[in-house]
């Protein structure tokens, strides 16, 4: 018994566990819209691009959060502008912009001659290095995301389902999309320290896709995705203490395992007609990690 509660005596561990739970919940909830709009590559690209922003702000001595926010907003605007040009293709444009930003970060690091712990955290996550300031930022972003999603629930749902028709029914689609881009950028920034640029996309995509396998209702998918994300954050960090594996990786591997179970369940159920699982399997075909 003493061994199982051992990690809780360390404040940094408890902070990390709270942070991972909140970030898991946040990514799970925001990821629902990302997955349903097939924007997974945007989350992926945004995370890598903001890593570049983090390095630039470190090198130039600006606070990470200020630098990353400016960079994140800039990237979102650039992605939105690029995605509208059909000749390039949205995903190609995003790939170019975000990998260049990422490469810029890597270039600056190598020029700097040192690979500090901060960069390591921004790439792979460093849950146990979370400060109370980081925790406050994560909490603030969670409140912001919750407020936006609650207040614009119907507009977001309609825009996600069919943005053209939503505008015909009077939804201010450009505003809704801008607001969501803001929430997504804030989510990625808040998650960077916990999951690292390389794992954020997974946390945005896996819980919603798992939830989609389990339900056909939007409301239930949203709730399930947030719960799965939060639970895997909590359990993942706790387990990582004992198996001595990077916590971010443990969280994502746990989500992957949950997805595998849900998939097996859906496949098994799809053998009985009329359960709806066949449709759900078809529904996740379009969702990929990058």
């Amino acid at each position, binding site marked *: 018994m003493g061994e199982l509660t051992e990690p809780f005596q360390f404040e940094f561990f408890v902070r990390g566990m709270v942070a991972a739970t909140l970030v898991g919940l946040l990514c799970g909830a925001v990821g629902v819209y990302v997955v349903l709009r097939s924007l997974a590559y945007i989350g992926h690209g945004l995370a890598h691009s903001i890593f570049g922003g983090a390095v630039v702000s470190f090198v130039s001595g600006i606070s990470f959060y200020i630098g990353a926010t400016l960079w994140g907003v800039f990237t979102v605007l650039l992605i939105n502008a690029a995605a509208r040009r059909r000749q390039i293709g949205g995903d190609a444009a995003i790939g170019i912009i975000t990998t260049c930003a990422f490469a810029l970060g890597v270039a600056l690091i190598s020029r700097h001659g040192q690979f500090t712990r901060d960069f390591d955290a921004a790439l792979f996550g460093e849950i146990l290095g979370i400060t109370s300031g980081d925790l406050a930022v994560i909490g603030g972003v969670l409140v912001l995301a919750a407020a936006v999603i609650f207040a614009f629930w*119907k507009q977001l749902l309609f825009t996600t389902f069919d943005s053209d028709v939503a505008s015909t029914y009077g939804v201010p689609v450009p505003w809704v999309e801008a607001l969501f881009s803001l929430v997504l950028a804030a989510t990625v920034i808040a998650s960077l320290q916990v999951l690292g640029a390389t794992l954020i996309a997974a946390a945005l995509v896996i819980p919603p896709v798992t939830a989609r396998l389990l339900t056909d209702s939007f409301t239930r998918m949203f709730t399930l995705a947030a719960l799965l994300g939060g639970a895997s954050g909590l359990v993942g960090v706790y387990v990582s203490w004992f198996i001595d594996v990077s916590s971010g990786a443990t969280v994502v591997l746990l989500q992957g395992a949950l997805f595998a179970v849900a998939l097996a369940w859906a496949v098994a159920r799809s053998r009985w007609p009329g359960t709806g699982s066949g449709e759900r399997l078809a529904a996740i075909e379009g969702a990929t990690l990058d």
Partner: protein
Amino acid sequence: MVELAPSAPGHRPPPHPDGEPLVELRDLSTGYERTPVLRNVDFTLRRGEFAGVVGPSGSGKTTLLRAIAGQTRRFAGAIETRPRPGERALRLGYVPQVEAINWNFPLTVGQAVLMGRWREMGWRPWPRRHDRELLANILERLGIGHLVGRQIRALSGGQQQRTFLARALIGDPDLLLLDEPTSGVDIKTRHEIMHLLGELNRAGTTILMSTHDLNAVATHLPRLVCVGEGALVADGAPEGVLTPEVLRRTYGADMLVLRRGDAIYVVEHLDDAMTGESEETPVPATPVGG
């Protein structure tokens, strides 16, 4: 061959040439991104009308409906609408063509229909009792009351059309725009849908619908608009519009028009209609009877 039976005199609802203009397109050129799809369109729809848009696939039927719905880019000309007194915009009910709907979305019939009332539902994410009563009423009226919790892919073609018709109707629209509402449904369902639309029109709803079904749908409408190669080719009652000359300019193929009493049949030479290679196998295009 049921639908080839001549319609009884007076079966067709009368046109309403005296209603006030609800929508006016003046010299409108509209399309997507760089090039207009439709050029120099002049079109007026009056309150109480029931009009159909016909034309080959790719001619711009959907674009015409989407232009009125404010979903396209305007290159030149003007769109003018007459909203209700005290309202800023026309209330539109838009039913997209089935191909434009994401059937994999985790959406139940109830959630889809309530989208049409997102504005009236206030700030809450969830529907109030009044909203749920309205939802139940509209679903009951369309005969899909028992399907409220069903995912939208798990519906028949007719039930899918009714679901999105319900979404359009729940917002009490001034104008109902339907894109090929009878495509992909069986004959009985097509009759039911057309009957339903006729009833709505008699109760005062203005309707503009596109269809590729000349004989079973278009000839029964009071007014037809022919779209061919990016322009309006003809506009008027079916008797005046459905002539070999107009059909050749619309479809780029020769067709036979048969008239018996009040009924009009268009006999398509399928190969010609699909490839436009009318020169190779000329078909006499003479009106018969009258």
